């Protein structure tokens, strides 16, 4: 088995990107990622894509490959909701480790803000609910996560203020992140008094719907300078529908423990977590399930500065989905791009001390699909 590295990454601006398409954003990000890795289209022999709501093609990996003049020996489109990006990195690392590919392009992009009616986006996303048992209730994705929030608040010591602190932290991180969708300063009161979306989730407890694209290069080549080795990954899929979810183990802890075992590390080794944060409750429950915070304490720790860029455990330094933005699969991949940018010293003003190991965690559906990836920073 060969060692595997993330050798390049690029993340477009997120937000309202008039005139762009899912394909144009994937192209833009892919070309930039190849440039950052020092390779060209002809060097790519594997292409992995997510899905694009605004470009619902049966063979998106082939579409992207053709557009970029890549003729890969392996192509694959993956669909695991918000966990897709991390799953693609895991798959790419397997392909490279086993010698199937040398350089895999992993990309996703979507224009959910400008390329689709908001109602259509909401309705499409709501389809993760069971068609007979859940969708008829009228719940959409924020509604499902609102159920999670109500349960979390009723069964832990956390308060709505604590959860809001996570949103404030993500916004604080996004303020000086170039390309962030939401970058105006935001306070706890702003979060708590923003319009109610689904009790108890307010607007700023939820990520925005964004346009954006991200691309990563996963390769056998060890970079000359600082780089990022894919040390291990793990998945867990314990349910699809919230009706069948186990409140005590939704798969997050299991995926993380599998990733840590694959990498030969423990939670104490992780210097920088990059955690999926579609809603404040997503971030809180993942941090706690993974072991980065005691149950009910994630928000309080955020308020106390523990997860600040200069804190003990810098979290989502780019602003996460809650503020950098959420453009579907690319939204979760923005965290993975941040791993590369931080590890290679290209994060500019938001550079943090990552420590030796970075952990990225994606969540798809309603806490349904979990994929964790451990990266080792080569210094």
């Amino acid at each position: 088995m060969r060692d595997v590295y993330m050798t390049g990454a690029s993340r477009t601006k997120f937000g309202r990107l008039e005139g762009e398409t899912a394909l144009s954003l994937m192209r833009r990000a892919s070309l930039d990622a190849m440039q950052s890795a020092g390779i060209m289209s002809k060097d790519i022999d594997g292409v992995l894509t997510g899905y694009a709501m605004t470009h619902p093609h049966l063979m998106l990996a082939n579409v992207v490959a053709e557009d970029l003049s890549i003729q890969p020996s392996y192509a694959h489109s993956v669909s695991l909701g918000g966990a897709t990006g991390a799953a693609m990195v895991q798959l790419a690392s397997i392909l490279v480790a086993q010698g199937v590919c040398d350089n895999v392009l992993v990309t996703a992009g979507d224009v959910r803000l400008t390329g689709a009616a908001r109602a259509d986006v909401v309705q499409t996303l709501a389809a993760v609910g069971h068609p007979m048992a859940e969708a008829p209730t009228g719940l959409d994705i924020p509604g499902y996560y609102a159920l999670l929030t109500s349960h979390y608040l009723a069964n832990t010591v956390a308060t709505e203020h604590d959860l809001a602190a996570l949103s404030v932290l993500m916004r604080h991180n996004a303020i000086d992140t170039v390309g962030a969708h939401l970058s105006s300063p935001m306070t706890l009161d702003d979060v708590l008094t923003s319009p109610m979306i689904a009790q108890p989730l307010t607007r700023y407890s939820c990520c925005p719907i964004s346009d954006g694209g991200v691309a990563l290069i996963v390769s056998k080549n060890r970079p000359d300078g600082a780089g990022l080795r894919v040390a291990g990954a793990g998945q867990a899929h314990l349910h699809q529908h919230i009706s069948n979810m186990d409140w005590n183990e939704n798969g997050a802890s299991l995926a993380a423990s599998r990733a840590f075992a694959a990498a030969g590390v423990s939670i104490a080794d992780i210097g920088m977590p990059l955690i999926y944060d579609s809603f404040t409750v997503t971030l809180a429950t993942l941090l706690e399930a993974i072991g980065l915070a005691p149950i009910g304490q994630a928000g309080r720790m955020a308020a106390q500065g523990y997860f600040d860029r200069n804190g003990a455990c810098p979290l989502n330094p780019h602003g996460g989905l809650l503020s950098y933005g959420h453009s579907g699969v690319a939204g979760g991949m923005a965290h993975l791009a941040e791993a590369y940018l931080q590890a290679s010293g290209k994060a500019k003003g938001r550079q943090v001390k990552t420590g030796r190991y970075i952990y990225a965690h994606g969540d798809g559906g309603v806490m349904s699909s979990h994929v964790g990836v451990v990266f080792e920073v080569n210094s």
Partner: protein
Amino acid sequence: MNLSEPAGLDQCRLCAQCQFVFSPLVSVCHECGSSNYIVQPIVGVGDVEAITQIIRKNEPPKFVCRVLLSEGYGLLAITQPDVNIGDRVGLSVLSGGQLVTGRKVI
């Protein structure tokens, strides 16, 4: 019981092999892997575990909860504003197949 309801939310599945009771959203017994089950009516009582209010313009407020049925699995149900997490409620199925909570059970 109306067996024609597509999701059969007022019915649970009893594994014919190991007697484990499971949700109508699942087709294979989690305990023994058997797909041979017997459909039987639920008792119609559960505990509210989570609740939300859907807020949309030009629509009346709607409350939805997840209920842990006495059979041991969860389902979503339409509910009322006076229902809270921890309440034990009665359950019934509307003609359209939707599960709703009814009276609180003391």
